[in-house]
């Protein structure tokens, strides 16, 4: 009997040791990733990096041969990312929040269930499919790769995230908020706009920030819709670059390895900041962000 007890304790110890071991082993590659980004990326980030557009391959080659830092920066990528994000936000935020409210208000009904399942499908849709669908519908019909197409591609990937976080946030609000508003004689629209929305503000903001950080990391749909461009471009119907597109371009051009790391480090630090801010705002909203 005593040996059985000892056996159980032994098993328990082995199990805990195993858990710690596995946890440590799996965190190692990520620590290596961050170390590499800091080591190879940060030293190339200077003022020029944010104020100049991306260098041409020839400039990069000459700089490498002379042993100097590659001239140029990623301003075109930053502007393009912001531009496409703005388009995507304008398209998705109102639509996503309204749909989320509808799903919450009509939960359990058939049509709402259908929409919810559709949302789940849209949520998990591979980004390459978003890319080629936007390519066929927008790029082909406008005969040009464009910022607009990139923005639409981003908005298709953002919309389901915003819908879901809106619905999850509203579900956490106490039911008496709405009921007391209606009991005081408020109109349905008024109650939603003036009572529910302010109360849900933090949760909605968290959802939007998270989906923005995901959209910043999107690469594939942008490659087939926005294409990339070495200049800053404010024309909505012309190709533009984004930070991820620049990473991909630098990766595919010889001699630009240092730019790859610098851009990656910068993009990753932005995404980390956005996530941390979102987490801080969302701490009181302990809902499950499914895409975290």
């Amino acid at each position, binding site marked *: 009997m005593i040996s059985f007890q000892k056996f159980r304790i032994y098993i328990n110890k082995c199990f805990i040791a195993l858990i710690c071991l596995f946890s440590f082993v799996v965190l190692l590659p990520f620590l290596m990733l961050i170390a590499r*980004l800091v080591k190879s990326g940060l030293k190339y980030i200077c003022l020029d990096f944010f104020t100049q557009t991306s260098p041409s391959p020839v400039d990069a080659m000459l700089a490498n041969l002379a042993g100097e830092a590659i001239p140029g920066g990623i301003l075109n990528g930053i502007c393009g990312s912001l531009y496409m994000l703005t388009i995507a936000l304008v398209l998705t935020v109102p639509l996503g929040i309204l749909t989320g409210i509808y799903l919450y208000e009509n939960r359990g009904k058939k049509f709402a269930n259908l929409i919810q399942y559709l949302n789940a499908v849209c949520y998990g849709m*591979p980004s*390459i499919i978003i890319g080629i669908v936007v390519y066929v519908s927008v790029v082909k019909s406008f005969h040009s790769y464009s910022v607009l197409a990139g923005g639409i591609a981003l908005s298709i990937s953002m919309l389901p995230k915003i819908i879901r976080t809106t619905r999850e946030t509203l579900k956490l609000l106490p039911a008496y908020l709405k009921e007391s508003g209606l009991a005081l004689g408020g109109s349905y629209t008024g109650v939603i706009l003036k009572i529910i929305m302010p109360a849900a503000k933090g949760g909605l903001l968290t959802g939007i920030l998270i989906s923005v950080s995901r959209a910043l990391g999107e690469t594939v749909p942008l*490659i087939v819709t926005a294409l990339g461009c070495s200049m800053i471009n404010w024309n909505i119907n012309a190709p533009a670059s984004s930070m991820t597109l620049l990473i991909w371009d630098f990766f595919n051009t010889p001699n630009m390895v240092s730019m790859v790391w610098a851009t990656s480090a910068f993009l990753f630090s932005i995404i980390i900041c956005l996530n941390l801010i979102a987490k801080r705002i969302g701490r009181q909203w302990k809902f499950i962000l499914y895409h*975290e």
Partner: protein
Amino acid sequence: MTLFVSTLALLFLMAGILYLLLSQARPAFEHFGFFRFIGSSEWNPENGQYGALPFLTGTLLTASLALIICIPFSLSLALFVGDLYKGRKIAFRLNTFIDVLAGTPSVILGIWGYYSLRPFFAALHIGHQGYGILPATILLALMIVPYATSMIITFIAAVPTQLKEGAYCLGATRFEVIRNISIPFAKKGIMSAYALALGRVLGETIIVTIIIGNSNHFPSGINDIGNTLASVIFNQFETADALKFSFLFAIALLLFLITAIVNLFARYLLRRVVS
């Protein structure tokens, strides 16, 4: 009323996507036949051979292997944060760290894998000079570990303390509590987290394109180079003529159906857990 109209946007969007995929893929099916398309293992557009089996195999192989690799790591990490060290500072820090890692853009992970991990793989003779299905699988597993872990933590941490304390009072060890109380309680949530992670792996494009080697022949094993549904669309998209374009859409339709089924399954499981 406005609310209702706004939902139509999503409805039309999904209907539009499905319609586009179907209408673009129709010439391909008319030309080659659906079952020949899925069943044939030769992709050779020059000879008019458009079989998707190599890519389908590549996708299913990488995705399932990545999930299998991911399971022990993510589960132990989730137990570490959500159970063993729950409430301590280290758990809180790690939780934040994992949540942030879950947002790593896949292009950064892929490029890091190319520069830092590929030499390792090459030295260990995994794949062809570090390219291949197994290296891609390992990177994909790395991609979904934080994603799955951060979801599982919420489910593991939500196991009622009274339940666990009751078991401890009866003399159970930590291992027995986790095995008999925590895991069964959170089972549906954990499964749905893995289903969502699987959906993400199936559709992942850029990591796979960087490291899998992009060859159109039928892979002979996990050390061989290959291609997945997503990466073949991405690779051949720009050079495609009209018919090949249509076949790429047929592949996209196939990928869409697979991921849709996986995601609906995840949603179905989650419905029981939350709401």
